[in-house]
């Protein structure tokens, strides 16, 4: 148990430190981390982001020698937790785990109180295997066949679950000259059910399709990421099919903007180690996440380029 600071001791400390501010803080940073770190997950307990964040936090805690407390603050696709984070001190003790689209896409779609400039990008561990799926009985080899069928019919329904997939299909529809009509659903699981029940022709899912696709009950038409998936090496990416677009969604760990460089370096190292830890690698495989690990400056570059990609996609979809 740590000693709880009383109001008087805090007052005393602040009076003392007012005079000694500079030397005091620099020695304090040298000892970072000297107290537990909090990772707030932007989604409910038990989901993919939550489970991945907990596994990563476990390893990070061992590397840094301080407990990492994982809390959940679900809401608005991670935006509630991200908004709260921007108001926290940038001391490296407060992190948020969410999906990268919370930051790269959502602020461009709805009015939110943050932009990609408001964060220190600590790490990305794992990428969602976003894909289009259809019933095998349709006889389509890949998404090109499906879109050809849509063009022939003029109109095709597909089960949608995010605003992201609506944009992607709007662009695809424009490119091939067909109307792809999104049928809204509330979860990836429902998308799979609608496709399997034959109520819609096509579906977009960020990962819920995995067990059914493995069992051959649904066929994967195309993946949205930059690379093919290890689990379905024969399924092409959208770019390979010549549509010139892609979408990447990562499990992302961010801190408020302005974390001191030495603290940030320690965080990057700990998260990079976590990303290659056998327990985390095994979990990514089990949860059908592509094994992507990035930290620090590299990640910040990725995030900004994805943000720009989405901005272009939004323009194209209009």
């Amino acid at each position, binding site marked *: 148990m740590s000693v709880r600071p009383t109001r008087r001791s805090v007052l005393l400390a602040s009076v003392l430190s007012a005079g000694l501010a500079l030397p005091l803080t620099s020695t304090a940073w040298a000892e970072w981390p000297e107290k537990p770190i909090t990772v707030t997950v932007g989604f*409910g307990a038990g989901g993919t982001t939550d489970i991945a964040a907990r596994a990563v936090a476990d390893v990070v805690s061992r590397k840094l020698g301080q407990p990492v407390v994982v809390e959940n*603050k679900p809401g*608005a*696709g991670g935006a*509630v937790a991200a908004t709260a984070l921007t108001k926290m001190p940038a001391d490296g003790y407060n992190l948020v785990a969410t999906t990268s689209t919370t930051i790269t896409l959502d602020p461009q779609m709805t009015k939110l109180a943050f932009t990609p400039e408001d964060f220190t990008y600590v790490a990305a561990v794992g990428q969602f295997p976003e894909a289009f799926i259809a019933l095998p009985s349709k006889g389509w080899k890949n998404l090109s066949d499906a879109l050809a069928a849509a063009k022939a019919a003029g109109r095709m329904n597909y089960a949608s679950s995010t605003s992201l997939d609506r944009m992607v299909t709007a662009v695809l529809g424009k490119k091939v000259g067909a109307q792809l009509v999104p049928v809204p659903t*509330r*979860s990836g699981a429902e998308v799979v059910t609608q496709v399997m029940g034959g109520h819609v022709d096509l579906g977009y899912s960020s990962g819920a399709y995995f067990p*059914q696709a493995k069992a051959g009950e649904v066929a994967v038409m195309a993946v949205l990421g930059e690379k093919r998936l290890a689990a379905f090496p024969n399924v092409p990416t959208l770019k390979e099919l010549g549509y010139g677009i892609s979408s990447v969604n990562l499990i992302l760990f961010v801190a408020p903007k302005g974390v001191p460089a030495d603290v940030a370096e320690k965080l990057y190292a700990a998260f990079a180690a976590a990303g290659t830890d056998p327990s985390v690698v095994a979990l990514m495989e089990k949860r059908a996440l592509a094994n992507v690990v990035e930290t620090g400056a590299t990640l910040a570059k990725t995030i900004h380029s994805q943000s720009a990609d989405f901005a272009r996609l939004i323009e194209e979809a209009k």
Partner: protein
Amino acid sequence: MHDALLGLTDALTPTTVAFIFMGVLLGYVIGVLPGLNRPAALAIAIPISYYLTPLTAVGFLIGIAKASGAGGATTAILINTPGEPNAAVTCLDGYPLARAGRAKQALQTALYGSVIGDVIGTLALILLARPLASLALGIGPLEMSAVMLLALTFIAALAGHSLFRGLAAGMLGVLMSTVGLDVESGSPRLIFDQVELMDGVPLLAVTVGMLALAEMIIQAEEVFGKKPEESVTADTDAKGDRFGWPEFRHVLPTFLQSSAIGTAIGLLPGLGPTVASFASYALAKRMAKPGEKFGQGELKGVAAAETADNAVVPASFIPLFALGLPGSVSAAILIAALTIHGVTPGPRLFEEQGRLVYGIFGAMLVAAVLMLVVGRIGLVAFAQLTKVPATIIIPFVTMLCLIGSYLESHSVFAVGVMVLFGLVGYLMHRFDYSRVTFLIGFVIGPQFELSVRQSLIITNGDVTSLIHHPVALALLVAALVAAVFFVRTPRRVQAVGESA
């Protein structure tokens, strides 16, 4: 089959049984304490279940759900105060029995009725859910919309004394459920720039506020206003107050008949235990033999109310497990609990989580046995709880409401929502608008809107394509017939409600 055996074995592990036992114990306490009811107790207990495995968590919650129904009879019989809204029917014959020195008979009839109803409802769930789930893939948005329309028709008609108030409460619930991001366009609706409202008004905060906090306000008002009903104690040694074989044979037909009614009503989403106990009581009364004086202390009256009430709970899980559609407020809260543990109820649940589903079924049977044992041993002890003064219950429960709503999302916003809906719930109670109907509208609303909009897109807005969906068409016709029937015969419907 393999899954079934594994799952049932899971339910018998000591840890699982221990948590079900704790749930049952807690459920009895909640049921006996007036004011704390089933959905509210479930909502408050969900944060506790975060830290358990999915099966122990659901087992714990199911223990609470089942036992609180059984416990609700105690206060109804002894102090003429229903511990749960649906136990209001139990008061009709239970309290007169207690005053006539037959409190123990009445309590035991309620206990056995609860257990029998519960077991029959659970068996129906086990037998029906899987076959229905295999049909469920074929149930598309059109069929879903039609099922819900039929259910909403019944809910509006049977919810309370007045068709208008029932509709108004239900529609207000539906309106509240439209807050958040639009399912089709993703544009925010009615959120007033509050990020916290993007996912809609939080379910648990609304439920806890509407049911638990509002009830505490109502009780606080009564503490200052009204004198409590005269309490009757269950004397264990009273002569002639025995529940033996003759009594059991006397009420057995009612047990079975009410189980069937409870199960049937549970199957249809949204009707819930209150409607079941009223309908079951009305039927038992109509079938009364000469000499059976319903309303003046007839064991069959207690049996009818309690059996149907408890058969509804497991039966309302049938649409939950088969279609992912919540059949009651309790079922909706259970969905929340399952989702927290990464389990999405719906037709694929049996394939993906067969072992867990059968584990849950097993847990439900274990809960029934524990309910009988705990109820039988603790009958008199639990009755003592009715003496806990409101001045202790009210602050304690209010504290639980505050903690429970905070823990859901670690936000003070949810606490504010809870308090606000506590006040709304109180006002609705004062002006006789059903809070449960409001909540059903709130719970079913999003699914109904989604299904209708999906249907419109899939059919491209073409009504004639209903021809290709005969099941949906048949359900819509049934809803229309029911609506016409209810509008043309309002007085009969009211009679059921007013016999309370």
